[in-house]
């Protein structure tokens, strides 16, 4: 699971062009959006596309559970581990 956590942090950094941010800088339990890493709604869409390409996941932009999956790297990792099909 630790490897997947780092893989997802790397995916976030590369997908969103987070200059000057390293895997070690991202707190696994901190919020990804707003007060945490500071990502915005366009980043959420971009991550959705990346998760689809990498893991075959389809997230609905409207669904409440999507909000929960994106709450932190840990939430996202749990979701990817449980539902990935590639």
């Amino acid at each position: 699971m630790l490897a997947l956590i780092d893989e997802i942090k790397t995916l976030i950094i590369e997908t969103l062009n987070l200059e000057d941010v390293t895997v070690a800088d991202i707190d696994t339990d901190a919020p990804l959006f707003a007060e945490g890493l500071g990502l915005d709604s366009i980043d959420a869409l971009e991550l959705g596309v990346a998760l689809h390409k990498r893991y075959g996941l389809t997230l609905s932009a409207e669904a409440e559970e999507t909000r929960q999956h994106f709450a932190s790297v840990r939430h996202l990792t749990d979701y990817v581990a449980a539902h990935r099909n590639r």
Partner: protein
Amino acid sequence: MDDADKWQDWARGEVSLSDHEETAAVRMMPPLLRRRAHPLGRAALEALYAPALGYANQPIVFCSRHGEMSRSLVIQHALAEEGQVSPQEFSMAVHNAIPGLFSIAKQSRAPVVALASESQLALSGIIEALAQLADGAPSVILVFCDAPLPMLFRHFIDNEPVCFAFALEMTAGKGYRLVHGDTALSTETASSLPLLRFVLDETQNALPLAGTAGWQLLRLAPESGHA
């Protein structure tokens, strides 16, 4: 190339612009905003952040013939090959995205206008800035930027040979005058970089901005003050 002396050398024709410049660092912009800009946008942002400009919420007139064309091409390729485009790229694929990013970073609510024009870009920008001044703005920031086009497009149109960006502040004054009339003998139409050269090189007295249509920018005698 970002220091004043080198640009003066360029205006005198002593050095040419290089196509091998490093991408502008734009250190003054928060990284979360800066990451969205491509090299051309970064060059324009660096010009807007220049300490010498001292941006103070003036209206911005952003002038670029093609904007970030490399971005449009990436989106079109993605659409053709994958049927899905990057939301991040798409959100920035409008002509006013770069000055918009700057106004977000500065939390400025001043007007932002983005212009594209094939040949009369300098004239269009100046007229828009004059309109803003006439509308009551004490000063207006004009930004000009362009870059070499992706190879795919170069067969079809003329191309700026280098990536460049510069910002000018325009205020009402007596340094220059935009005239239209019997000076219409010129067939030349100055684009962005010739406008910068004209501003820097005080030996030039007139700049044709619209070929035989007759618009010219005149430099007035120094004793009448600066504009």
